[in-house]
């Protein structure tokens, strides 16, 4: 089961991070968001956290390798994909209008 988690956890973390940033963006446009709080810095921070989590995931896969060469190389490829996905899919927080 650990080997299955090694393959699936980093990319699942991307799904969680992506959903969380999208939810945060939705919340920032909702009636519950404080008027005096700028949304973009918060979203940028959330994006950086998401990237950091993926980077940590990749490092964990690299520094605690699987005894199986196949699992190890596949897990690195998936964790790398997750890191790229975190950078690419949440990049709109840089420039896109938040609530327009």
């Amino acid at each position, binding site marked *: 089961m650990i080997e299955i988690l090694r393959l699936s956890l980093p*990319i699942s973390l991307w799904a969680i991070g992506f959903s969380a940033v999208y939810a945060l963006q939705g919340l920032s*446009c909702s009636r*519950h968001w404080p008027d005096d709080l700028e949304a973009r810095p918060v979203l940028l921070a959330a994006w950086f956290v998401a990237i950091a989590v993926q980077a940590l995931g990749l490092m964990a896969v690299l520094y605690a390798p699987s005894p199986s060469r*196949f699992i190890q190389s596949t897990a690195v490829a998936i964790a790398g994909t997750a890191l790229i*996905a975190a950078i690419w899919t949440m990049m709109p927080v840089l420039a896109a209008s938040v609530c327009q």
Partner: protein
Amino acid sequence: MTNPPSPKRGTALRLHRAMARIWGSDPRLRGWFTTNNNNDIGTLFLIVATSFFVIGGILAMLIRAQLATPNSAFMEPQVYNQIFTMHGTVMMFLFAIPFFEAMSMLLLPGMLGTRDLAFPRLGAYGLWVYIFGGSAVIIAMLMGLAPNGGWFMYPPLSSAAFSPGIGADVWLLGITSIEVSAIATAIEVIVTVLRYRAAGMSLSRMPIFAWYILVVSVMILTAFPPMILGSLLLEVERALDWPFFQVENGGDPLLWQHLFWLFGHPEVYIIFLPAAGMITTILPVMARTNLLGYGWVVAAAVSLAVLSFGLWVHHMFTTGIPHMGMAFFSAASTLVAVPTSIMIFSWIGTLWKGRARMELPMLWIMGFFATFVIGGLTGVMLAVVPFNWQVHDTHFVVAHLHYVLIGGYVFPMVAAIYYFMPLLTGRTRFFKLGEVAFWLVVPAFHITFLAVHMAGLLGQRRRTWTYNADQGWTALNLVASIASFVMAIGFALIILDVAVNAFVAVRGRRNPWGAGTLEWAAAIPSPAYGFASIPIVKGRYPLYDDPHLALRIARGEGYMADTSRNRREALIVTTARGEPSQVVVLPGNSVMPFLLAVVTSTSFLAPLFDAYIVAGLALMGVVALALVWAWGLGSRADEGLVDAAQGAMLPLASESADPPGWWGSLFLLLADSVHFGSLLFGYAFLWSVAPNWPPQSYLQPQLWAVALALAGALALTAGPRLAVRVIRRSRAAWPALGVGLIGALALAAAAATVMLDRPNPAGHAYDATLWLLAGHVGLHTFLTIIMLCYLAARVARGYASPNRIGEARIVALWADFTAATGLVALGAAWLPGAVG
């Protein structure tokens, strides 16, 4: 390479006869209702799914007949609405998913080197639920009671106000029952792939199709629950007027779109990935080489599966979502092209390094390439927001999805049918209608849907029943309709070709394609027991490593060839390394799955006729039959280690801490978690963005109710865990189980306070959501109470021991889940009131 074995036909024949007696289905008609063998269930699944494909195809022809000419009077608009709704529904829910499930059931045990799927009775149950649910939907259509709101059933169009009658209810209840069937099959497949494999089949040696189907099954467990929740909300709104989607009472129709597309977009990949798995299996054999980049393909399949969950909002680009939200999903939509491309380059590279032979399966794969790449590219076009706005809800989208679904799914599945026909029927194709059909279907498909693309670009809206001659779409629609009829003739020829060859073609030899994977080592057609002995594998292509493996298996030179115990035994291996770890005894023939499916389907379908008492009785029947089903498993005495051959003495699965049932529960709870998470998402969505919030007041938590919930959850977690510990020490378990029971009752009581404090769920979406949260807790505590009582009875009757601890661990797992989600649900209910 090993030396050829000396012939010992007597041994093989004796073994075959003994195995066939043990694993055989009941004779005659009774056998169809009591069988749970994967060959029988898979074949029935395949036949029924193909029948639904034919029905869906006929509906498609009716649509094209209507659209062939402007101002057509072929159909009334009301009928047309039902026809296009049913076409999408039948193809997506009744054909596409069940068809690949059927193929998985038929092929997976052979590919993995095992004898059957992990839960044969669950597979049979899933089949019957699917047949009853699907038939109900079709019968409703024939009676003119079909849904007419499109296959994604957007409210408010599908609400009681705008869709009176039972059409929408048929869809919601019928499709939900089919989703239950799909979840049952997915759990069965996951546990099979992870634990039921040949000895030595580590994860790195698994056939590539097993990887794909593992990924897809996990996707089913995570994608279907939001849809089930959405259907539940809409049905409750229609039946009881709980206003989840009614804006005036705090609901929001966009919630439905989120829940539907959280399912709907991964659904596309749930359909595509099994087809990709088939291509990845067939193409290397046709190219007479091995797959290029096995590890990359696995990584691409896993990545694609997860990334596909980040695409759902691209179906909602025209709903007024802020630019940033759209950009997230636009970016994710472009990203999925990367893993898809890795797969395509792997296939091209495999062809490049091999020597392809243009047999019929390969022709269909070529048809796939030509079609799917175009579908993928139009998908990237649709991911670009401004373009998406222009073509939203036009025939361009219709053409795109048909390129992806027919090109990306149907063509590969036709290839798979022809490729595996010798294995499934034992016959070699003789009548060559298949080639003719190919040259009818593929060109006609492209003519049809290129014309539909163009009509969409020229502005033709989907789901409009006719158009005027001066709109400039006449020629395109006529061409599309004529070509679609040619395509239909081609598909009819395929079905005819397969049927004729399956029944009257000459008997064939084993492994005619020269494949290297294990399914071709079984006798053809595959007998009920699959393999006479469980093979030992040392590589990814066992038949290339040992060309005489089939004979060795037949002669019993693997694991589990002993028939003296006279029961259906299979081998369980460790998940990663594939080392033999347990012997599992699979259940025999039983009518129980059929009966349980009858009462399950009755509980789903009776509300259509306002027969709520019948539905309630049927639900009680579900519980009763499930208990009878479970009671028949296990034993009252420890058997100890079992001789599995090859010098291995292994414990029975029923005398292990992690029997298959524990794994099955784990994955069922994964689906349950996603369902619960979707409910929380819906609550948060309404709370944050729905109009007409906040409600007049929030629920105020009472300290004693909070304390009751905390104490109940604690007792519910501690009790069953303690029970596991005392059973391991051969001490009395009832005090611990009693603690768990009291905890469950306390948690249920805390949930009841929520309902009592807000007695009118029809008043506002907030109240309705509170009732659902409390209902989640109530349902799970009810189930846990039943499980605790069941476990107490099992312990009292001697079904538990320090070795036979699996059932207690399963109950503990459910109790933990109930306690954890119960606290979260009640916390979510109380939180807004607590923070003011």
